[in-house]
């Protein structure tokens, strides 16, 4: 057995030891050298690179939710735009020519200079907001130091004038200011998020690094409005307001089964896309913010009380001669001397005297309670801003004249929406349903306020109002049975008392009578004096809106002259029984 030479073993060990050590040393020197180069010798270039990219935390703006009509048509939508802002300190010190910038932003000359001067100590000023992204890119391409863009959203309302009051609008910072935009601001607006990003010197985001707080975009809102009917209602109202030289007006269309608002229009109106030259009055959604004395349109409810008490029937006789009636220092007039009228004909002829005499047989508190039950003096809860409750005075002592005039609609005041809700009760067989501006999936449950048999009797009378013997022949819709009531109300003067040169023409009604589907209320404010009766001015608008609603929804006619229905029996083969 041979032993290895101990000397050669030792030598081999030293060689390997120093080789490894040497390699490690060389590596270490290289690394140190590289570190020295980066940190000390070459740092100006890297510092420039570092300045060029910066990690910042930026806000992520949520996109505001859309507003849709009941059939999914877009009523309001936000699209991205770019706003141009500047850091006055950087921009002023860069000594750039501001002319090109002024031109690209389409500003008047000198505007930027004066802004820079005024806000010289600030770090942020807006130059121009809400530019289309393409225009903003042109501005950025000028490569001016201290000029940056910010992504924002601009709100568009494709329906323009047609739904201005319902929708309202947002301000430039995307906060709802009027209408549904304001009422549902929280639902629509969403929650701002935050993220950490890498930006270049122009503060364009190069890369997202991290999400710090998630952004919650706004939710969509589906309204009960049907844009087709809304557009139609606005056109018919506008035609009537123009033809009669009226100061304004409102029209409402409600679904009788669900109490959804299908159309809500007012004049004067405004275009939510362009509000630059518009003053306060145009923004008012008169259908909920303005109150009117309802006049004769409340007579069906006064008479429903009379029928409910059981002391009257539709055939009870009332003496209205000689065409005026003095009560408590107040004189009530009819258009002419109607003589002796049945209760039915009091409503059909719209006799003030007849209605007042019937109401005097009941306690004023009962009449007050009836009006309270049909929702007068209480907001409807429709979720639109500025809604008024109207006026329904509750007195300790009722003077006879107050009692009598309230019976035919003076001394109380309601919004057009309250009137529509009240007629909705007659259309829904005596049950009051809660009205809404949001789409409903199913009919809501309501509260009975008028007995069913009384409603049937009243509706039969209201159907006669819309006939040659009544006051509203012009509310007729061919092939359908229509019920409704006119109102012609003198406006209050500023000095107190009623004016005889300024009226409101009203019409409220529903159809088809056999199974009511729609309720329509039309109010026309201060029509010209050649025609100002509700039956002449407001009733034709009612008929046009109702005709369109019945046609577009495909509701079969129920009228006497309705011969054009073909009835099929369900065929087993077709339906697979």
């Amino acid at each position, binding site marked *: 057995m041979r032993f290895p030479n101990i000397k050669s073993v030792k030598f081999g060990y030293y060689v390997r030891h120093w080789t490894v050590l040497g390699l490690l040393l060389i590596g270490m020197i290289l690394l140190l050298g590289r570190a020295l180069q980066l940190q000390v010798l070459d740092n100006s270039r890297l510092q420039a690179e570092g300045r060029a990219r910066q990690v910042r935390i930026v806000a992520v703006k949520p996109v505001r939710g859309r507003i849709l009509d009941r059939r999914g048509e877009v009523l309001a939508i936000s699209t991205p735009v770019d706003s141009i802002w500047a850091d006055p300190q950087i921009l002023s010190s860069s000594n750039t020519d501001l002319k090109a910038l002024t031109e690209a932003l389409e500003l008047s000359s000198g505007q930027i200079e004066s802004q820079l001067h005024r806000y010289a100590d600030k770090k942020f000023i807006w130059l121009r907001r809400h530019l289309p992204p393409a225009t903003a890119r042109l501005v950025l391409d000028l490569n001016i130091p201290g000029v940056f863009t910010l992504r924002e959203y601009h709100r568009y309302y494709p329906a*323009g004038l047609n739904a201005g009051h319902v929708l309202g609008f947002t301000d430039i910072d995307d906060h709802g200011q009027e209408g549904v935009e304001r009422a549902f601001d929280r639902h629509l607006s969403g929650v701002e998020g935050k993220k950490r990003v890498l930006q270049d010197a122009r503060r364009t985001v190069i890369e997202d690094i991290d999400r710090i707080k998630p952004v919650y975009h706004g939710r969509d809102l589906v309204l009960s409005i049907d844009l087709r009917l809304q557009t139609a209602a606005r056109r018919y109202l506008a035609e009537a307001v123009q033809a009669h030289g009226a100061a304004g007006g409102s029209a409402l269309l409600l679904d009788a089964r669900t109490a959804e608002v299908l159309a809500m229009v007012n004049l004067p109106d405004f275009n939510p896309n362009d509000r630059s030259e518009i003053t306060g009055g145009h923004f008012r959604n008169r259908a909920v913010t303005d109150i009117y004395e309802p006049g004769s349109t409340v007579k069906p409810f006064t008479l429903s009380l009379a029928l409910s008490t059981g002391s009257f029937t539709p055939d009870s006789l009332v003496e209205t001669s000689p065409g005026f009636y003095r009560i408590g220092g107040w004189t009530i007039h009819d258009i002419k001397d109607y003589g002796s009228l049945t209760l039915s004909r009091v409503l059909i002829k719209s006799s003030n005297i007849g209605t007042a005499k019937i109401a005097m047989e009941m306690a004023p508190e009962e009449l007050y309670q009836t009006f309270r039950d049909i929702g007068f003096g209480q907001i409807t809860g429709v979720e639109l801003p500025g809604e008024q409750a109207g006026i329904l005075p509750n007195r300790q002592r009722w003077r006879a004249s107050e009692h009598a005039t309230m019976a035919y609609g003076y001394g109380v005041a309601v919004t057009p929406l309250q009137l529509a809700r009240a007629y909705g009760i007659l259309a829904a067989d005596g049950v009051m349903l809660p009205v809404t501006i949001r789409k409903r999936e199913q009919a809501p449950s309501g509260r009975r306020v008028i007995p069913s048999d009384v409603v049937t009797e009243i509706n039969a009378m209201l159907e006669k109002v819309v006939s040659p013997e009544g006051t509203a022949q012009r509310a007729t819709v061919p*092939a359908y049975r229509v019920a409704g009531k006119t109102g012609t109300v003198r406006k209050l003067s500023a000095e107190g008392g009623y004016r005889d040169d300024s009226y409101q023409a009203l019409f409220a009604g529903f159809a088809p009578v056999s199974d009511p589907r729609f309720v329509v209320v039309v109010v026309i404010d201060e029509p010209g004096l050649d025609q100002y009766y509700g039956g002449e001015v407001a009733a034709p608008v009612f008929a046009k809106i109702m005709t369109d609603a019945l*046609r577009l929804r495909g509701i079969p006619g129920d009228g006497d002259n309705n011969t*054009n229905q*073909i009835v099929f029996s*369900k065929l087993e083969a077709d339906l697979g029984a």
Partner: protein
Amino acid sequence: MIKSSLFLSLIIFVSAMAVVFVRSDNRQSFLALQAATSERDSLSEEWGRLQLEHATWSLHDLVENEARFKLMMIAPGPEEIVVLRLEPRQ
């Protein structure tokens, strides 16, 4: 003693490698998310524009004018409409 410290070192090594892989994986996923998000954003922008365009072209007044004056169409009156009603089988 040596055995247990060897074992611990091994575990530390494994965990260190796992951290490396998870971080890398996280980075990859974040990049994918970023790409998907920016694609979604640009698609939703385009969708918004298209919706706006659609709403503008389908404005009821516009469609009505087209129908009434260009195509000479009229709306049928209630007496011209025939309703076909299905009655339940007796």
